[in-house]
Structure formats: C-alpha cells, structure tokens
C-alpha cells in the first residue's frame, strides 16, 4: 500500500490550466495529487476529463468528505458503489475519509462533526470501517478532524480513540497535523502527547494546512498558508513516524498554482530537516 512517496497537493479545478499547460516544469517538486472523491462520483464533463488527464501523469490519492463513518445511519451503499467505481478508474494509491459524522437520521449537515470518544463509538466506527474495507477490497485511511467541542461522556483521549479504531478495523491513518494543532489549542491537550500516542506504522499520509486564530479558539479554515508552528509540529510528527507522503490541503482562498508549488518546497525542506 505504501508505494506512494514524496510530496503532493490537493488537486483544485482552478489549477488545471497550469498543471495541464505547456510548461513541463510547472509541477516540479509535486510528486502526486489528491482529489476530492465526491467531485468526481457520478459526473462527467470538463472537470472529470481534466482530472483523468492529471491521473495519467501523476499518482492520485482519493480523499472523501461524506462517508459519514461515525453516523448512526446505515452506510450509503450508492455512495460506496460510486467510490468503488471511481477507484476502478483512477486506481488511487490511497483512499481516505474523516473520522467524524456528517449527518444522521436522514439529514446531512455537510460538516465534519465530532464523535463522543467512547468505547461504544470505537465499536461502532471500527465495524463500519471493516465493512467499507471489505466492500472496496482494500484498506482505507481515517483522518483526524479539527474539533470545537468535547462530550461529557468522553472516556479517552482523541489519539487513543483514533488509534483504537484503526487497530480494531486494521485501517490506516491520514494524519492532519494542522487539525492536531487546532484541536490541541481548543481543548488544551498536548500535541506532543497526541503524536507520542499514535501507532506510527499506521500513519500512511499527512495533511498540512492553515487556520484562523480567534484568541480563545482556533478555526480550521484550510484557507491560509501552512503556519510556522504547524510546520514545526510536522517536523515533530516526522520524528515519530518517519518519512510519510505529505501534502498541502488548501480548500479556500486558493492561490496561484505556483504559490502552492513554492510552499510545498518549504514543506520538503522541513521534512529533510526533520529526517536528517
């Protein structure tokens, strides 16, 4: 599974002209791209055509936002079928989604909502992950999300929760370092403790992103460059997990492609520092 290496970027429609243009050097330093799975399930047209053109040149990983693995609603079989069909086309190196729920009881809030950190939730989510992996015929990765509330019923730390689910379901971890930074600040836990508590062999991909600081809390916006303190936490993470494929995930306030390529070079330099 770990035949992905190096540094990647989230593939955004604004950047297709640059990536697919005539300049062969424009993607220098970009080893792979991550697509948002939902953008390409059951659709056609120019975005799909361009994505497939990129997939012919670069390794692709698929990242989903709506599996709702923690919901009490049944898994959406139509969605899973679409995910599998897309994977058949794209042949992604990795498939991931978030450790969260996005809606329940027939509704969808289109947000990555927090789960109570309990044994019962571990059982619930691990069972669903196993089901998804059986259906897709491959391992998936779960990503830690930024959270803004905890629950009175919480029985364990977030890293113990993530680790236990991944161990029981035998799935991988997509570690979002910015999300650790955000949640650590919001809930007052130690990001170092988080990193130290992870099963390092399960971390198969890393996300880096930016956020918005609001004094008493931080909001994970993914619409800013990766801040220096997140980059420092990334170096600390690599110290634990070793070399792991890493990407910048920019979801808003999308800059020119060249800016992200330049930012990715800084990430590569940080990784080299951490691993030297």
């Amino acid at each position, binding site marked *: 599974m770990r035949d992905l290496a190096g540094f990647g970027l989230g593939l955004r429609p604004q950047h297709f002209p640059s990536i697919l243009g005539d300049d062969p050097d424009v993607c220098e330093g970009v080893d792979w791209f991550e697509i948002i799975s939902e953008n390409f399930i059951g659709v*056609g047209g*120019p975005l799909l055509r361009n994505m497939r053109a990129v997939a012919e040149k670069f390794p692709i990983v698929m990242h989903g936002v709506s599996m709702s693995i923690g919901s009490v609603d049944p898994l959406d079989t139509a969605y899973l079928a679409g995910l599998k069909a897309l994977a058949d086309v794209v042949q992604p190196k990795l498939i991931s989604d978030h450790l969260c729920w996005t809606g329940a009881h027939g509704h969808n809030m289109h947000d990555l909502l927090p*789960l109570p950190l309990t044994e019962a939730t571990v059982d619930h989510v691990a069972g669903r992950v196993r089901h998804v992996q059986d259906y897709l015929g491959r391992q998936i990765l779960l990503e830690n999300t930024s959270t*803004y509330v905890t629950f*009175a019923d919480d029985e364990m730390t977030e890293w113990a929760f993530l680790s236990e689910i991944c161990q029981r379901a035998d799935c991988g971890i997509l570690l979002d370092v910015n999300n650790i930074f955000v949640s650590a600040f*919001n809930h007052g836990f130690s990001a170092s403790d988080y990193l130290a508590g992870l099963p390092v062999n399960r971390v198969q991909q890393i996300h880096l992103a930016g956020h918005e600081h609001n004094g008493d809390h931080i909001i994970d916006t993914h619409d800013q460059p990766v801040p220096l303190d997140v980059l420092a936490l990334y170096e600390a993470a690599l110290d634990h997990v070793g070399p792991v494929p890493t990407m910048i995930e920019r979801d808003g306030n999308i800059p020119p492609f060249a800016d992200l390529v330049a930012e990715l070079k800084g990430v590569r330099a940080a990784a080299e520092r951490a691993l030297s």
Partner: protein
Amino acid sequence: MTTSLSDLQKKFQNRLLHGDDAVDPLLGNGGPFMKVYDHAYRARLIEVMSQDFEGLHTLLGDAQFADVVTAYVNAHPPRQRSIRWLGKDLAAWLAKTPAWAEQPMIADMAAFEWMLGLSFDAPDETPLQASAMAKVPPEAWPMLTFTFHPSLNTALLSHDVAPFQRAAVSEDEEPDSAPAPFAEPITWAAWRDPNTMIVTHRALDIDEAAMLHAAAKGETFDAMCEVVADLSDTDDAAVRAASILRAWLDCGWVVGLDGEGISW
C-alpha cells in the same frame, strides 16, 4: 448515564437545524465553542449556493441571498449525500413561496442557473453522429425513439435572465439592468458541447420545445411529427421535424435511437 450515539447525533443535529439547545448538557465544559459549528453549517450552505447560483446572488445582493438560502434550507433541510445537490429544489421553492413567487424573475434565474450546472457536470456519453441517420431505413423512421445526452436540460422561463447571468459570472462585465420579461414563457435548453465541453444554451421555438418534450418522454418520430404539425405553419411537418432533429444531432444532443431492427 451515557447518551446513546443516536440520541447525541439527533440532539447535535437539531442544534444546527433548529437552534435546539438539548445538546448543551451533553457537551464537555459547556461547549464554549459550539458556536463554531452553528456558524459553519449556515456559512457553508450559503457559500455553496452562491457558487451554484452566482447570478441569483448578484440579483438579490448578499443579505437577501443569505435570507433566501436560510429560508430554503429551513424548508428543505439537507438530506443529499453530496452538497452538489443542495440547490435541487430551490427554483421550485422560490416559485411557490409567497415572498418570492411575486417576483418570478427570481425563480427563473434559479432555474436557469441550476440547468447550466446540471449540464456542466452531467455524465459523459458519446453523441450519435448526424451521418448515422442516413443508415436508418425509411420504413423504420415512424417508430424511431431517441435517447438524449445527460447534459441536455431544459427550463421554461418567463424572463430573459441569460444576459444578466452571463454578466454576473463574468470578470469583465457588470449586469446593467434586471432581467426583462418575455411576452410569453420560453423553453430554454442547455447542453455541453461534446468537444469543447463548454456549456451552451439557447431558446427553443415553440414546436421544437414540444417536439423535444415528446421525444424525451419516449414518443416516436411519428408522434413528434404530429406535435410539430399542431404547432408550426409548415406544410410538411416531417421535413420540419427532420430539420429540427438534424440540429439536435449537430449539437450532440442525441446519444441513441431505437426502432424496428435498430438500436444505436
């Protein structure tokens, strides 16, 4: 006593949907930052709707557009797996909701933009070449039925919203006046050019619109000719229908046809 995951998710969700505070006792430390979820839910829906309805957003302005989206999602709490489909019922809701139904250009703009969006990312299929029609035996024509490209969509509009919408999404233009009403409602079609992938749209003549409506329902070419005969001045409805069909083929609208001994 622990709360079931089902109950927790219901209460959390009701907070976002209805402002219900039943989830508050379940939050750790009183949940001082629960407001982040409250805000993110509304903000994300408004942002996505603004991307899908850029012309409508321009037409209404920020405050009124936000009001429309909020009222719409209150009436249609999101259930779709993909947020892509959030605006599916907006035009129909605007057309029947008293505050907006009195200004039908609002619903027209929403219908027009939703149509363009459907055409933009509809699944790909290979259009039939116009030359294929030459291979249809004359005796097979009356019973022919047609299948259309998924990117072909129609909307019945009572206002000329296209120029305003084009200006609203353009970086070089500014809309200069509100959409003007048509003398009679007109059917518009939007489709994606199979080669350039650019979404195009045009108004349909009355007979063409009726013929397309019949064809899309699976009626035969013979029935389509009858529709044309009822609505056009031509002496030869079959010639007029064949001419319309040829235009559809040239635009890549037709992806299949069925008839006796024919299935393409």
